[in-house]
């Protein structure tokens, strides 16, 4: 076994938005980081199926998700700039349909003001902002925004990769064993510094020159037992068979499957899948904000969805919350569509013209709040990251770095920053290029570029360029480009081809 290349400081399980943002943040330090993902590309689980909303807030403010949502929202401008993804603060508008409700809005406004910017708007002001909305009043939260969740995650992955993080796709974690590394000579074997030292490695804070112990070890730790300072042997399963890697830390960002991963180290979490369906309309300039009706009584489990806009300006209504048995059940039912349309029509005078598509995502719900904890030493759960997980992702990543830092400091180690490389950002769309996707004006060059950046499936190409998203006519042309670039013609799922040649 090529064990030398199989030793990591941190292994992140799952390449959704949480895993990729943690990877991105950790890539700024001298660490050898691995991300393991069972699917062929990033953002394949809850990330892709979400609404793309950067929430202004999450109630209750005192909860972990409430705090991380506010922090993540504030960090989003900086992240968008650093990683080069599109982010628009379109604003959240909670509208009041009745006088009573507008009274409630005025009563609760000072409470919200303690945490974030909010304005009360009268009937006329709302008419000016949203001519198609009929309301007695409303609360405007200007910090609410939208992103393309796949683009956001993909850019975080590119940054992490550029800064040395390794990604293994189509590799499923099938076992995690705590191993005992008590003898310094063992460690000498596994962590050959001359190889891994270049990538980074945690170094002893008292003696940075002492590198003989390798990436993952230091002198003070050598007498620890597994209990005190466990190492993990993580078994990965891929098409090539099984392989084992060794990691000092494991971070569980496995989304819907975080319970299975936690169980591998004896921790009990229950992840309940909660499907959220959306209806996508072709209408543009239908409305300009994230719009929801201010509930007199907050809904128990969700924020209730709303009339949303995408980063490309399309209208989306949703999501709802439907309990499903199967974690992969992303099927949208006719009754759901009818219910969504009925519910979200309420604020509007004129209804949208053309529903063109529906999609669903499955939330990973683990009780009321996020679970970010360390059930056993050196193993960190980042689980139950349902809404507002997309918003919170940058804040979660920083929290995990802090947890890691503290854990290392207890061992007398220091997490050191390294010189980071910045992503080359393509500032604007190229001019004078013939489009192949006319609806979103995407050229074949753009598709080729995203493929050389690492797009691996049709879904990547679709979500990252917008091609095929609207009328769908350019699908054959896009598949042809993918084929010419040597990509398998696959959707997000692992094995099935969209089309093939005999």
């Amino acid at each position, binding site marked *: 076994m090529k064990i030398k290349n199989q030793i990591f400081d941190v292994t992140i399980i799952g390449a959704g938005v949480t895993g990729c943002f943690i990877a991105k943040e950790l890539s700024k330090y001298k660490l050898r980081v691995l991300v393991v993902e069972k699917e062929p590309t990033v953002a394949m689980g809850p990330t892709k199926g979400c609404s793309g909303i950067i929430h202004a807030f999450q109630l209750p403010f005192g909860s972990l998700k409430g705090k991380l949502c506010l922090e993540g929202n504030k960090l989003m401008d900086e992240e968008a700039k650093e990683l080069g993804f599109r982010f628009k603060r379109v604003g959240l508008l909670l509208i009041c349909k009745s006088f009573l409700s507008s009274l409630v809005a005025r009563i609760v406004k000072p409470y919200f003001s303690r945490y974030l910017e909010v304005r009360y708007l009268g009937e006329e002001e709302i008419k000016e902002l949203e001519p198609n909305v009929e309301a007695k009043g409303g609360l405007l939260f200007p910090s609410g925004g939208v992103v393309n969740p796949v683009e956001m995650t993909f850019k975080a992955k590119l940054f992490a990769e550029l800064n040395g993080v390794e990604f293994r796709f189509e590799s499923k974690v099938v076992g995690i064993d705590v191993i005992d590394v008590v003898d310094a000579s063992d460690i000498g074997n596994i962590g050959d510094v001359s190889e891994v030292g270049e990538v980074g490695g945690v170094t002893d804070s008292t003696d940075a020159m002492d590198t003989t112990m390798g990436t993952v070890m230091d002198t003070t730790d050598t007498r620890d037992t597994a209990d005190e300072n466990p190492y993990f042997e993580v078994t990965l399963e891929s098409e090539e068979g099984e392989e084992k890697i060794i990691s000092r830390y494991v971070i569980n960002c496995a989304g819907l499957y975080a319970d299975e991963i936690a169980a591998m180290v004896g921790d009990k979490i229950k992840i309940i899948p909660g499907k959220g369906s959306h*209806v996508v309309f072709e209408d543009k300039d239908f409305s300009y904000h994230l719009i929801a009706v201010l509930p007199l009584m907050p809904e128990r489990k969700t924020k209730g969805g709303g009339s949303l806009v995408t980063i490309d300006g399309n209208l989306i209504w949703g999501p709802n919350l439907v309990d499903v048995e199967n974690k992969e059940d992303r099927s949208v039912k006719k009754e759901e569509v009818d219910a969504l349309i009925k519910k979200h029509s309420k604020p509007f005078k004129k209804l949208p013209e053309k529903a063109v*598509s529906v999609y669903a995502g499955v939330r990973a719900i683990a009780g009321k709040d996020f679970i970010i904890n360390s059930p056993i030493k050196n193993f960190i759960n980042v689980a139950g990251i349902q809404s507002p997980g997309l918003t919170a992702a940058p804040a979660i990543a920083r929290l995990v770095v802090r947890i890691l830092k503290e854990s290392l400091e207890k061992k007398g180690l220091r997490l050191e920053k390294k010189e980071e490389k910045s992503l080359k950002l393509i500032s604007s769309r190229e001019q004078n290029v013939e489009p192949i996707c006319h609806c979103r004006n995407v050229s074949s060059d753009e598709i080729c570029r995203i493929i050389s950046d690492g797009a691996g499936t049709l879904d990547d190409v679709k979500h990252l360029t917008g091609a095929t998203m609207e009328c769908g006519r350019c699908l*054959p042309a896009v598949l042809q480009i993918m084929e010419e670039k040597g990509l398998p013609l696959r959707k997000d799922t692992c094995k099935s081809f969209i089309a093939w040649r005999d």
Partner: protein
Amino acid sequence: MSLKSIETEALVVGAGYSGVLLSSILAERGVDVLIAKSSLESEIEVFLRLEVLSSYYSEFIEEYRELLAQLRPRVLKTTILKTERENGEETERARWKVESPHYRITADEVFICTGCYDKRVFPCGVLGMRPAGTFSLQNALELISKGYRIGRRVLLFGERTKIFEIVEEMLKKLKYECEFVEGEYAEVLGRERVEGVVVEGEKFEREKFECDTLIYFCGRESFNPFRLEGVKAGNINAKTYDYEEVRRDVLRLKF
């Protein structure tokens, strides 16, 4: 990169059957006409690579080829992004300013012959999962015409129209297992690949069909994503696979 300026009496946007037919009529009348052909293939180009369809549409294909050959010098390979009256004037006398990635064209008249496309999943009542193996009729035809196989066992779902009959025949010749069902809603099953479709319709409440591929068709819509202005002609109005109708729409134009 500098843009090339061109002046013409008539600009026809789209080099499918409608665009080519219209351009040849104009050229015959001595009008100075240019045709803009985008990188998207026209339907006729797709049909002529498909055995059963090329014989069904042979009349139109022959006509298209002949006319296109004659018009070759007048074809500009570029995508028209914008058409507007000069100085923003609404009057019919104002000339047109036309933009493409490589040209700035001034034209006395602009004809929009950008054709149409098949309605998408939701308007066709296709719901459920979104695994690999779900195609609009148009995409299925284009992929097959390019030499791809798109599945083994195909369910054709939607409105009973002539085109579906021809496609069914074609698919059978190409050794696909093939079945047609008329219905209002189709719920797709399967995670990675289509594993079946549950159809609801007038004739039956819910019935499950075993298949690995779904081709849906429930009518067509105008294809004009850049919202180009000008005189619309051909399949952009007719919205059909019936090329007699497309021809009639072009010929109804009076000059």
